[in-house]
């Protein structure tokens, strides 16, 4: 694979290519393939780095997961969390992108810059800002709206509070993506629709949405992957509490692995999350394809 000489390539190019490709392959083997393999093997073991245990358990870790209430609770939290945040991210993102894109708005890049700002700021710091905003006494949330809610200590409010923060942080990404999608739409389709006297809604429904579909799919899939892995917000804002109301899958894996040091059990859970991610990604491909 590496030594096949191509007629169009000079000697120095072949050398460069071989070095680069070899380096890439070595890197991905050492830091991806081997770790994934180790995690897979480890998921069938009792694996504790503190006591140095590495004992074969067979399927016990997986069996334990299926009877582990906290795992199921965190999985359902993760699905609710991802679903709600993605709906708002995509919905808001699309609505705002369309608004900025419309002829009525000047200073388009100013608005885009504004909405994208939270996306680039570090999650740990932003989570602290929101933790203070949710503070029952000094927090802005209660001050502005005249409420008296202990957002993060109330098991009904804590997960929505984390979702709200995540939507605030992330919807700007969808705005930028959808605006890029809108600008890449073929102009002639719109002009043809104008000539045919299509209403704005018809244009939106029958031209914009179908043409934007690949971009919507892209945003949905990257969001699924991102939210299944979300844990920093939880770690900073609630640490899974109150009770278990804000345990998300990635947080429980972090907790099992680096608080309790059950590496084997945590690896088994992480593999299940891996499969869940793959299935959801595949599903979103299917759904968007079948509608078209």
């Amino acid at each position, binding site marked *: 694979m590496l030594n096949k000489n191509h007629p169009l390539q000079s000697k120095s190019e072949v050398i460069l290519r071989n070095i680069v490709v070899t380096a890439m392959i070595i890197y991905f083997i050492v830091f991806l393939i081997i770790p994934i393999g180790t995690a897979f093997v480890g998921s069938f073991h009792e694996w504790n780095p503190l006591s140095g245990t590495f004992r074969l358990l067979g399927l016990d870790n997986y069996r334990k997961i299926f009877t582990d209430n906290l795992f199921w609770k965190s999985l359902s939290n993760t699905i609710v969390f991802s679903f709600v945040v993605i709906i708002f991210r995509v919905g808001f993102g699309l609505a705002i992108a369309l608004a900025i894109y419309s002829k009525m708005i000047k200073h388009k890049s100013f608005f885009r810059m504004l909405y994208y700002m939270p996306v680039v700021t570090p999650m740990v*710091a932003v989570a602290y800002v929101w933790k203070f905003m949710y503070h029952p006494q000094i927090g802005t949330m209660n001050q502005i709206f005249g409420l008296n809610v202990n957002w993060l200590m109330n098991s009904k409010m804590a997960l929505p509070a984390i979702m709200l923060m995540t939507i605030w942080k992330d919807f700007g990404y969808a705005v930028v993506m959808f605006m890029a999608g809108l600008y890449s739409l073929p102009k002639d389709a719109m002009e043809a629709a104008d000539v045919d006297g299509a209403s704005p809604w018809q244009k939106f429904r029958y031209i914009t949405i179908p043409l934007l579909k690949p971009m919507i799919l892209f945003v949905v899939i990257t969001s699924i992957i991102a939210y299944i892995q979300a844990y920093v917000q939880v770690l900073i804002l609630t640490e899974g509490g109150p009770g278990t109301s804000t345990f998300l899958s990635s947080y429980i894996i972090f907790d099992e692995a680096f608080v309790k040091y059950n590496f084997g059990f945590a690896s088994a859970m992480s593999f299940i999350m891996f499969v869940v991610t793959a299935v959801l990604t595949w599903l979103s491909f299917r759904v968007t394809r079948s509608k078209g």
Partner: protein
Amino acid sequence: MRKKVNSFLLRIILLILGLIVVYPFIWMLSSSFKNNSEINALKQTLLPKVFTLNNYLNMNEHFDFVRFFINSILVAVTVTIIVAYTSTICGYVLCKYKFKGRKLLFGFILATMMIPWCVIIIPKYSMMKVFGWMDSYKAIIIPAMFSGFGIFMMKQNSENIPDEIIEAAKIDGANALQIFHRIIFPMSRNGIASISIFQFLWTWDDFLWPYLVIQSKDKQLLSVGLRMFNGQYATDYGALFAATAISIIPVLVIYMIFQKQFIAGIAASAVKG
């Protein structure tokens, strides 16, 4: 007339939304200039009544924040430079050089972006222990040297470089490295700018990995430092606001300066991808 009203309303809505988006930053920043009694007061004002720099000045008494800050800058800049270089050269090779298994390799690189961190992190942590890289920046820098996302973006970016330019340089007698460094690298400016900003932000933002592999307090990075600080001085709100502001402001400044390249880069890579 109706159009004008609509346009006005739309602008107002977008502005209000923009205000909601920036409000937390403004609130944090202005609170960092208030003294603690004002922060804890029942009636609050957005702007400080008494402007004070004490939160920033006293912060370093509790915690060596300047140190964390410098550590974070050093690590993030190092990783960013390495990743920008490896992404450009790998993306270029994958785009312009034909070889067997190229599609497979690229597909594999795309697939790596889908792998959740939690699958990799436990074995990677054990690996760092075996390599003896714990509590060293090697553990942060070396496993981050190649980026699937970066390679993907720079491959898309290289598609814009016409083959004729490369051919012409070859006829002029340039070797592959010269072509890459003198022609491809400068021509990939925009892509490099956006991947650099991304990588810098990610490294700056990363919490879990430095938290796991760095133990000495004086080597710790800002994001972990922020959490340690919060754990220990949970009631000194003024200092907490100041510390949080310090870890957000550099990022916002970089964003303000480079936002054009940044947004153009990310959007372009997705449209093509």
